[in-house]
């Protein structure tokens, strides 16, 4: 029983991080149908911005979180302008390979400038451990911070998407790009904003993961990036609630699988679940199957 509760706590923290990254994937996919493989590396850049600010400038947790989100949103927009915009009308495969080239570029430019070694993320949050059940279940304040920040960001995202003008424009472009353009929506601007918001969430996830695991390295983005993408597809890609649901689901599954002795197989289990779900519900758990029209 204690172990299950402990795993639930760990799973929710991991799931929050996956959910934050998955949101960026799903928003970009929803709007331009691109699997943005570079998204995991934007999350890595976010972690490094957080690392640099806390280590060298001695900033606190909240300021570095915000600075990292701003830096990542700018990076996201720049990547979109330079790499994806010129190719917007090419085939999906060329766009996908472009995304992979951006991902490689970000990874190895970081390796080139700062070296491939793993760095220690400073402890900016004092770690208070609250124990239950005579110390067999540990709830760290870090876990609470991660969950609370994730929830705040998600509420903010819901507000932006459903209550603001730009959110309305984003939903319109996701539904039908041409029709939105006829209605006077500036599609380029909307795509830019989508990248900015998605990347900001990834930046936040990067700082949170730095605090949670205390390590950052230039290749840290590819694993969680792929996993978060799996989460987005599990929930139904293109759907914001789907990404959140998929993120938490995957986080919990992973911690439970590792807890019961399958830690070496945890990635395989994640992918196996993905394949099974795609076979039963090709549009994801929360997605609606759209009938093909001829």
């Amino acid at each position, binding site marked *: 029983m204690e172990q299950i509760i402990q795993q639930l706590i760990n799973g929710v923290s991991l799931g929050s991080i996956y959910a934050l990254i998955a949101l960026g994937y799903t928003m970009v996919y929803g709007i331009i149908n691109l699997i943005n493989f570079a998204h995991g590396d934007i999350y890595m850049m976010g972690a490094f911005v957080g690392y640099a600010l806390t280590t060298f400038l001695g900033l606190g947790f909240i300021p570095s979180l915000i600075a990292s989100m701003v830096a990542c949103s700018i990076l996201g927009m720049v990547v979109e302008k330079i790499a994806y915009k010129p*190719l917007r009308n090419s085939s999906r495969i060329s766009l*996908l*390979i472009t995304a992979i080239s951006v991902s*490689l570029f970000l990874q190895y430019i970081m390796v080139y400038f700062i070296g491939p070694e793993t760095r220690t993320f400073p402890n900016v949050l004092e770690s208070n451990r609250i124990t239950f059940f005579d110390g067999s279940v540990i709830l760290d304040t870090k876990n609470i911070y991660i969950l609370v920040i994730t929830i705040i960001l998600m509420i903010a995202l819901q507000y932006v998407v459903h209550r603001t003008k730009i959110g309305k424009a984003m939903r319109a472009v996701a539904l039908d790009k041409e029709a939105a353009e006829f209605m006077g929506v500036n599609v380029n601007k909307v795509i830019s904003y989508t990248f900015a918001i998605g990347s900001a969430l990834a930046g936040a996830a990067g700082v949170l993961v730095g605090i949670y695991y205390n390590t950052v390295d230039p290749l840290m983005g590819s694993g969680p990036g792929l996993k978060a993408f799996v989460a987005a*597809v599990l929930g139904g890609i293109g759907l914001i609630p789907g990404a959140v649901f998929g993120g938490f689901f995957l986080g919990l599954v992973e911690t439970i699988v590792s807890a019961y002795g399958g830690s070496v197989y945890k990635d395989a289990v994640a992918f196996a679940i*993905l394949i099974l779900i795609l*076979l039963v519900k*090709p549009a994801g758990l929360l997605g609606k199957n759209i009938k093909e029209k001829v």
Partner: protein
Amino acid sequence: MKSFNKRHIIMTIAIIAIYLLGKILIDVGLIDSYLQLNIMVIGINIILAVSLNLITGFTGQFTLGHAAFMAIGAYTSAVITAKLNLPFIVGIIAAGLMAAIAGVLIGIPTLRLKGDYLAIATLGFGEIIRILALNTDYIGGAIGFNDIPQYTNWTWIYSMVVLTIVLITNFINSYHGRACISIRENEIAAEAMGINTTFYKVLAFAIGAFFAGIAGALYANYFYFIKPDSFGFMKSIDILVIVVFGGMGSIPGSIVGAIALTVISTFLQSIGNLRMVIYAVILFLIMLYRPSGLMGKTEIKFLKKKEAKKYVSAKS
């Protein structure tokens, strides 16, 4: 129909002449071991690219797990030649068959998916294969599989490359190949015309997997050492890049693409740290300036007109 025409004879002579030329140059020593290594890599990449082109370029099924079939072939051949001490030809055939069986088993459920979903499912399948190999101690696990006998040489690689190209080209120009192309062009229309789309998709998948398995066997028995991480997601991407760079649905494109990209990455080896950054920039520039690939949709017009005529007359 004549079984041999002029084109055929010229092609056969050219194929034999290139083989002999290579053989002589290697025997005399004009091609040193470093150049030979690159020729082997080019050969393996050609087989991989042509086989993936059948699936992605001709049948239009977007997969990101091709390296997994190569891994299955590599490990099968490694077990057969190193652990069971059987001859290389058994290893190659078994590697191809094992990969093809895996292709069918994976293909039947996943090929119902379309577009990006298929890509993700095959990506997941590739990762599962890699993780299984990482955790199976019999084949070396994470440490890798050592001491595989080195059987792959110019003769093997050349004959396998020629075999792959000829068989896949003939397949594409056959009735079945045209069925595959029709699925790429419009799956619903193909189905409406009475083509069993699932069957042809799985067939293309199995044939592609078969040759990827052979490429894996050649790889394992050339480098005498394989490890699961050589067959990860990035390897699948490398193969896909060759196909897209050469031109989707173009066999000559895949050949040229495999040669060009192998040469590029060999040159980049000497640059060191910035290698991957430059590779990324090159990839981006290729996608920006040649989105339809070097050769577009050029196909080998090997017997094509004759076959088409035969088909028309047989049907009418």
